């Protein structure tokens, strides 16, 4: 067991009647890391997180969060953590600042609503009713509420789902700020780019089980998927005269014959050989792209499903 872990989960299970939503999972989250839980709808990620937040009892296994048992010491735990739920609402006629002041009063520690409103760029909207805020402003307010007790551990459940790209980028920036402040963040998402950009480690869940866990880079490296090398030349290539480059699995020439696509398990070596061959042939290079397997590729490979299934 890692001494730095502030969340530790062992053989965690959760059943609803005859349906087993979480089937004995183990993981730890270290202080100061952003830990992502990736999975399609129904994978069990929200159930897992809600057990750790003290919102649902577990059916089996053990869980400790900040030293507390989330089932038996839920009030103490809730006082220490920040939670941004997937689907939540506030009264239509509550003002943004009133909401922060109200929720701040529930905790034994709170930071000023003014500071939070300014940080989340909601100061101008402090007197606006909740019903008049845009989707992005409501989500920023939800994040401000999750920070109202100055928590060291935050659970963000799909915080950017349904938001436009601009707002998503703003929220990504905020999560990066939280990470810089050495706060621990547990982030559930089904956006691959979010996990790749923000998470130090990722657990991929499917049908109640963790099917892979590690840093995004480690997971990508585990993939049997090949990298794709795409090259555009100034003059057309003759598909019948292409050599067999080392480690190249599949080679195609598209369109007008100037676009070459090669799949390789060892892209650096293959790319070097292609460049050498082009140079020997005296051909001009116009463009080159190398695309590594993404977490999505890893996920599809492990589960046979797409993340947004």
């Amino acid at each position, binding site marked *: 067991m890692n*001494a730095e872990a502030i969340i530790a989960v062992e053989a965690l299970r959760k059943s609803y009647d005859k349906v087993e939503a979480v089937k004995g999972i183990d993981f730890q989250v270290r202080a100061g890391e952003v830990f992502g839980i990736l999975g399609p709808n129904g994978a069990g990620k929200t159930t897992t997180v809600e057990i750790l937040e003290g919102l649902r009892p577990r059916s089996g296994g053990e869980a400790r969060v900040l030293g507390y048992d989330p089932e038996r010491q839920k*009030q103490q735990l809730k006082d220490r953590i920040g939670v941004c739920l997937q689907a939540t609402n506030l009264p239509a*006629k509550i003002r943004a600042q009133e909401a922060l002041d109200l929720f701040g009063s529930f905790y034994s520690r709170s930071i000023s609503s003014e500071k939070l409103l300014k940080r989340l760029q909601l100061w101008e909207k402090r007197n606006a009713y909740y019903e008049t805020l845009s989707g992005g402003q409501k989500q920023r307010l939800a994040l401000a509420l999750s920070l109202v007790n*100055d928590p060291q551990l935050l659970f963000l459940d799909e915080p950017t789902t349904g938001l436009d790209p601009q707002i998503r980028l703003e929220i990504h920036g905020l999560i990066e700020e939280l990470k810089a402040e050495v706060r621990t963040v547990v982030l559930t998402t089904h956006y691959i780019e979010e996990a790749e950009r923000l998470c130090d480690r990722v657990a991929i869940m499917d049908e109640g089980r963790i099917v892979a866990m590690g840093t995004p880079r480690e997971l990508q490296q585990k993939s049997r998927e090949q990298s794709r090398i795409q090259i555009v030349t100034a003059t057309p290539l003759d598909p019948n005269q292409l050599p067999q480059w080392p480690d190249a699995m599949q080679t195609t020439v598209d369109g007008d014959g100037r676009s070459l696509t090669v799949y390789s398990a060892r892209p650096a070596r293959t790319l070097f050989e292609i460049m050498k061959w082009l140079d020997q042939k005296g051909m001009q290079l116009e463009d080159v792209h190398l695309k590594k397997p993404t977490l999505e590729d890893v996920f599809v490979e492990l589960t046979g499903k797409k993340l947004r299934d």
Partner: protein
Amino acid sequence: MLRVQEDFVEENAPGGLERSDKNKSMKTYLSLIAIDLKLAARQRIVIFFNYLFPLIVFFIFAAVFRARQDPAAMTYVLTMSVSLGVLGNGLFGAGIRTLQERELNILRRYKVTPITPVPILVASMITGWCIFIPYILLVICLAHFIYHMPWPAQFGSLLVFITIGLIAFRAIGLVIASVANTMQEGTILVQLCYFPMLFLSGATVPAEFFPRIVQIISNFIPATYLVFGMRGIMLRQQGLADDWRSVVALVITALVGLTVGTKLFRWEKEEKIRKSAKLWIAAVLLPFLLLGGYQALTGHNVIRPGIFGK
């Protein structure tokens, strides 16, 4: 055994305002009451059901019962109007509002905080009372200055009795909200309680006009004890002790209702409750079922002749 870094929070917590448990608890209650009052004042429907609707009923009944010519008739009208307000405030104000907040995922946001149902329910009770008391003072003033009704001799008893009634009916509303799984189900349950109480308690139609069998049925309805308890205080200058059975029944209902409401409180619409849980409504109404049974067996009747009976 799982071990985690337990001292992390204490060591690394950056600056923030720390509160003792007592201060936190007090601040939670005060904040909830303050926000509930603000939200109520911003909602037209709350103003309508707590002030306008009972006031409209007040003036209509005053005209129908020719209250200008008879101050006693005005007392009658006043109890009708206040009873309607108590029923609306309790069943709709507490019951339907709690259901709405659960359906809209508002209570789900509260669930992730360290708060328990108790401050939410207590704040709801106090807010309901704060909203309703000005209405009582308003109609008593209107009754006195426009219709020449004498000031109530037992004003303290009247306020205490109405307060107990208000808490009891808000508790019934909260229990309905707790046992209903959907808004639709909750609305049906509220209507099933509201309309019999409206028409069979004497709150709208003078109960002295009811046939004997309806009067017996009326003895089983909680609102009957509210209406006639108020009339006893205003018309016969009774104190709380004179109508102790009604007072005790309302107090038991309030206590049982609050306990059941807290026990069965649900934060999320996904948390369904068994259909058999609806029997808790009967448990809350049990004091009145017993009182009604007692009245029927002994041949007593809570409905005593008022001015119309005479």
